[in-house]
């Protein structure tokens, strides 16, 4: 791998790690979502530094060039991230559904008690 390409790849890996850790530090990114990003950066870093590992991996998967291997793994990583987001969105959708149902049932109960005058709840108490 040309030295310029190697330096650029290393800088990108280090940059991604610093950026992700800073997002976690500022509580803009939860730790659970940082795992895949940090793991991928670490793997890319070692593959660039240990070029013989990248060549061995390229030969193992039958790719033509080491850079192709890096692209393949980058795409696999993006797919994993997308699947992780999809599963999280599915979970959040269920949670939103349950919360909205509970909200609707509680609101109905409050209104029912209000009409019967037996709750003693005021607007401010309901919040």
């Amino acid at each position, binding site marked *: 791998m040309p030295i310029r390409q190697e330096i650029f790849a290393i800088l990108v890996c280090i940059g991604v790690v610093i950026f992700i850790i800073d997002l976690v530090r500022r509580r803009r990114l939860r730790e659970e979502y940082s795992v895949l990003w940090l793991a991928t950066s670490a793997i890319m870093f070692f593959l660039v530094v240990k070029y013989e590992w990248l060549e061995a991996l390229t030969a193992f998967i039958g790719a033509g060039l080491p850079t192709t291997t890096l692209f393949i793994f980058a795409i696999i990583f993006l797919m994993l991230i997308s699947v992780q987001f999809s599963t999280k969105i599915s979970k959040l959708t*269920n949670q939103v*559904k349950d919360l*909205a*149902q509970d*909200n*609707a*049932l509680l*609101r*109905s109960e409050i209104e*029912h008690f209000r009409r019967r005058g037996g709750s003693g709840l005021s607007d401010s108490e309901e919040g």
Partner: protein
Amino acid sequence: MEKVLVLIPAYNEGTRIAAVVKRVQGVVPDYDILVVNDGSSDNTAEEAAVAGARVVSHPFNMGYGVAIQTGYKYAHAEGYDFIAQIDGDGQHDPVYIPRLLEPVIKGKTDFAIGSRFLEVDSYEPSLARRIGMAFFRKIVSYITSTRITDSTSGYQAFSRDVIRFFTTEVFPCDYPDADMLITLHLAGFRIMELPVRMYSNVEGKSMHSGLKPFYYIFKMLLSIFVTLLRKRNSIGR
């Protein structure tokens, strides 16, 4: 005496919901009526309440399956023994509510589903819809070993055990029909189909428009497939 709830899911049915509630009251005056207003932008909730129904309103529209599950959660929390469920658009003739409930109350079945194809006076759906219905009813009838002619029917009656079962995450909120019947069968519930009269939707409003039929077929096939893959104890009662 048994405690029965008539559940009516409704979305933007402000012009028709009061008439539906009144007709149900005329047929079964002793039963409580719950209208689940699924985030309607019109006066559905007010019309239903004025007509005498108890109303639960979603804060936003979440779809038919979520609306009926809200009704099941209400029934479960309030300790109802049975639910009779009809659509809020006036397609289902409430006269058949006692007939659907009778075998459930007598313990002959756990889940009664009304079929428009067993009643001669019912309307005929479009050809494309009939083909889709025929395809899924073959699958459901084969898997459940029960003759099901109208697996998409929302006209249903069922017992307390089914109510509780439907409040859990096993209930398929996204188009609950063929896969719901298979889930019920795998959980050991008895299913019975009875004739009911259904009218055509005069305003032509349908949950199966645009690209939705394609998604429906995909979703239903996938859902049936994964339901069969699941271990029976994971969908047990």
